[in-house]
């Protein structure tokens, strides 16, 4: 074994293992995803949720302000009128159709900022991968919070 081979190959390998060996004793930063998940920052903005009032009524009034604020133009809102028999939200107006195209969303949170009722919020669910493009159109049913009991 020539001197060069020792200097350029063996020594770096041994040094590298040395670093690894030293770090083994330290605390690990990786987690075993998906078995483990890391705590997220408080203001993380991921998947949208349409929230409800405690009464179970939807907060969203179908005002389209979120759609207007969205820089990616990825929200589509269609409104309709509440009747006494069929009431979805307090007041006169609710959203019959509410869709977000997650492929276009840039998670800026402007929709949340624009919403006058605090209906649309970006929460911490970041696992949005899917197989079909169509599956990225999140409908109102997917976005709406389940009624809490």
């Amino acid at each position, binding site marked *: 074994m020539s001197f060069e081979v020792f200097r350029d190959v063996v020594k770096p390998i041994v040094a590298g293992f040395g670093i690894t060996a030293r770090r083994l004793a330290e605390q690990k930063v990786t987690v075993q995803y998906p078995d483990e998940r890391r705590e997220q920052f408080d203001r993380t903005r991921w998947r949208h949720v349409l929230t409800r009032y405690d009464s179970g009524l939807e907060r969203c009034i179908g005002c*389209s302000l979120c759609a*207007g604020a969205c820089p990616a133009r990825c929200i589509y809102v*269609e*409104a*309709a*009128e509440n009747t006494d028999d069929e009431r979805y939200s307090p*007041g*006169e107006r609710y959203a019959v159709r509410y869709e977000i195209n997650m492929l276009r969303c840039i998670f800026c949170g402007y929709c949340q900022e624009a919403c006058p009722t605090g209906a649309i919020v970006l929460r911490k669910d970041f696992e949005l991968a899917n197989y079909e493009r169509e599956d990225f159109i999140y409908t109102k049913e997917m976005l709406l919070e389940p009624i809490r009991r």
Partner: protein
Amino acid sequence: MVKLTINGIELEAPQGELIVETVKRLGLEIPVFCYHPRMKAVGMCRMCLVETGFKQPDGSVRMMPKPQAGCTLPASEGLVVVTDSEAIHRDRKGVLEFLLINHPLDCPICDRGGECPLQNNTMAYGPSTTRFIEMKRHLPKAFPLSQYVTLDLERCIQCGRCVRFTEEISGDSDLAFRFRGAEMQPSTFQLTDFESRFSGNVIEICPVGALTSAKYRFRARPWDLETSPGVCTECSNGCNVWFDHRAGKQVRINGRANDGVNEEWTCDKGKFGHDWYNSTSRLTKPLVRRGDQFVPASWSEAYEEILAAFADKGGKVAGLTGPRVSNEGLFLFKRLFSEAFGSDNVDHRWRSGPVPTGPVPRPLPIASLESKRHILVFGTHLAEDLPIVHLRVRKAWSQSGATVDVAYSAANEVERFAKASLRCRPGAEAALAKCLLGEAVWSGKATVSDAVRAELAGFNADSAEEKSGVSGATVRAAAARLGEGAVVLTSDRLLDAPEPPSAWKSLKALAEATGSEFVCYPTGTNAAGAELLGLVPDHGLSTWQILEGCKDGKIEALWLVEADPSSTHDAALETVPFLVYQGTLENEAMAYASVVLPMAAPAEQDGTWTNCEGRVQRFRQAIAPPGEAKPAWRVFAECLLRARPSTPFFNPGEVMEEIARVHPVFAPAQYSLLPEEGALVARESLVGEPAGGGG
């Protein structure tokens, strides 16, 4: 002209011009609510406050201690106006704060939100927070004033625009203020239905969301909409509109300013009448009949069947068009029949009476009615047939002091401001016209040829009562009012009355003999265009003859474009061996069709339409046609190409160039020359030569 100073800028303005308008010309803005340029200024809202002063002889300026309303302040010599001072900003803030005290601020659910003058002015000049912590006024929300207009009383700022519109413009005075002070409510007196043919306009001029459209309610926000300049194709007035659409669907119609046509108004028929664009019975695929059923076909299959039935059949084939086809479509339809089929049997006229002969002078531009001394509205329900002409006639009366007489067989809106109403018996129009002419002749006001004179024997004011049901004195006075500067105005509805040629002839003679102008406006959307493009048979069969011919077996193939005579002539449609129905919507005529072709609606294609005064206006494509529907002109061009190889037309602009070559009156309508407000094309006659058969 007077000299005045605005914000330190010296300028000249016509004496008496309102300061809001002068300031607008400078490119500056005074915020307003109650002021509307087409209505009288009332100074109700105080939003337009400005500081004023006067130049003293020594050159110094003496300012007034209090601000004044700019919308009621006329320009005068030496006036000094300040629109942009700290005090004025404080005043505007104050006015807005007062207006907002009782305003519910429910902008997120308000249909006006996003295009609301109150929102805009508050953003620009208003306070950013409220100091009002007391209970707000609570009033009914979403009160249905009519099937079209919804009133939200909480939002009203009592500017009075809506009330003044019904008083000054539409003239029905349906709306009024009930109660006073904070309780003041604009509504109908007895909370009856707001029945006006022009009710939709108050939605647009209300500076807040108090009056909103019941049809557009919650359908979209302004920023969801795309808007395209368009032309209303529901009647022959050709109002300019904004065609608002969302995701390829028609959503609403708003008025677009064109001083020559509709100023900025629309009628309810137009504003709310475009729902059919989204109808589920829109035709989307060509269909051909196989036995008892329609099967979807490709366009080329459909063309083949059509050409097999029509090509070179000469006088045995015929085509009838409805009113909504564009100029380009009509022109190619005529050419298809004459060149490829060798037939002259094409017509567009559906009036029940035979069409009178003889050229008619150029129709008067709608705007020119304003400057007339006297208008006799004869034989037409003006507000129904020609709503926008009706508004002009009323404007001539209300603003330029013209007198108006109306002769019609039923109650109608013109009677509200007419000097005299000659309400004749239904069907007595011809007799009444003769009596009027007779009266003018016998009283020596007019001279006519001896032949006409002989016909008029026994027709005069005294016999009018018995012959038409109009009192002699009324007829006498009405005849006396005709003459220089007067107009005799009618529409082709006159042709629905019995004896139309006679009524027509007498009326025309009446106008000519008394030196008045005569105008007959057509009522079909593009009837004027069809007339100019010669969509009437030169020597072939006219509408009713064609339909009769279908029954007798003389016509072997009939092509209907957006027309459905099945209610009156189902036997004809049933007997004709080959029927093509081309249209936008499914209808009864389809039941008899051999081939059904889906047609693109006006907003779904590029094209021009000619309104009743002969104004050619372009309507560019706003939305895509449903399914495989094609514009009519393209279908005719493709058929033409299959029948006779020739240079194809690639777009309607090329068709218009060809039209201009064949019909030189259309030269100013070529797309490269056509101005935004349309071009009045010159012509000699509107209702053309040949007489149709009886209906």
